[in-house]
């Protein structure tokens, strides 16, 4: 029996994914890393990006995440994401609409509303990420 990893992707709102997998690829702030079973204990911050989960039969699942953390310990990978969505669950139409909406919103904001602008930029990134991952993952 091949050794596997328990991969868990959780957001503050729900558990997005939990399964036994062969490999997890995650976007840390120092670049992408691949995690296989027997990996040394690790904690790292993640950039917004894509997570790839590979199964024994070479099937790959894609997820979009909006930044977060990863912890690897004893063949258990926990990914704490602000937001996360499986590629198969991403509604591209809706993401595109949200993208347009946020762009319009941002254009109307005054320059001094820094926190709102930051928020909008994060939203934009997240929408773009979802669209990108949805296209790649299918």
């Amino acid at each position, binding site marked *: 029996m091949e050794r596997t990893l328990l991969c*868990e992707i*959780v*957001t*503050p*709102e*729900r*558990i997005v994914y939990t399964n036994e997998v062969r490999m997890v690829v995650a976007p*840390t*702030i*120092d670049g992408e*890393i691949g995690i296989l079973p027997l990996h*040394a*204990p*690790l*904690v*790292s*911050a993640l950039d917004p990006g894509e997570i790839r989960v590979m199964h024994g039969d070479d099937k790959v699942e894609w997820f979009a995440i909006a930044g*977060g*953390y990863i*912890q690897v*310990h*004893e063949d258990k990978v*926990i990914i*704490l994401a*602000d*937001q996360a969505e499986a590629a198969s669950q991403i509604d591209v139409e809706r993401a595109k609409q949200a993208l347009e909406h946020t762009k319009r919103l941002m254009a109307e904001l005054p320059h001094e509303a820094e*926190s709102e602008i*930051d*928020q909008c930029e994060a*939203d934009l990134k997240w929408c773009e990420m979802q669209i990108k991952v949805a296209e790649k993952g299918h």
Partner: protein
Amino acid sequence: MPNLRDIKNRIGSVESTRQITRTMEMVATAKIKRAQEKIESARPYALSMMEVLGNVARYAKGAEHPLLEEHPHRLRVVVIAVTSDRGLAGAFNSNILRMTENVIRDETAEGVKVDVIAVGKKAAGYFKYRGIEPIATYRDISDKPTFVDAKSIAAHVIEAYAQEEIDAVYVVFNRFRSVAEQRPEIHQLLPIERRVVEEAAEGSDVRAEYTFEPDAKSVLRRLLPTYVETLVFRALMESAASEHGARRTAMKSATDNASDMIVTLSRSYNRARQAAITNEIAEIVGGAAALEE
């Protein structure tokens, strides 16, 4: 003697009110369940977060972080008041507003300037009426709070605290203890109490030799703001569940009161009807007797 038709109208109006309160009670009951499930599904993240925080804190021992730092002076504090958008929930909102009001009074007495972040239309309306301008107002999120909302609220205070523009942040919200019990509570959001971090560190597995990317201190620097965001999110979710709980209780007693009222009114109605009939018979008998003579 009250008019028969008046009583009949009263009964009709109380009955339709009861219909409304009963429906609201049922809606609230259904919503409590959903809100409770949301709190439950946030637990795995919170637990994992504490685990990661513990591991990081163990390696970054003694690390300084602006969010852990208590300021030597206390000039400005921020209170986040979490209320609902809708009323008819008993003392739900007034408890929060009173508690916030107390904090404002006590702090002001010590020469501290207090700013308010109003969550929910009730808080927004109240502070406007009191002539206090909230530094931020959030409407239409109290029913279904999202983490994005929590992030946005936290963003107002995290940066300001790190820059020492404000010296403490509190959140006032209704804690959901059970379907029948909600309690207004005040929690300190910032500075993050060192105890929390230390306890998390004690719980971490000391046998594991972790590597950190880029390093423990940088991860901690990013993790602590996220921790604050989850605390805000938690408060929003607790408040949402409490709101439905409070509304259910309020509507249940309104429904019960309406039922009692209908019983009393029906009794007066029957008594009045009886009196009218007796009166009529007496008149008929009187009339017949007059004819016989």
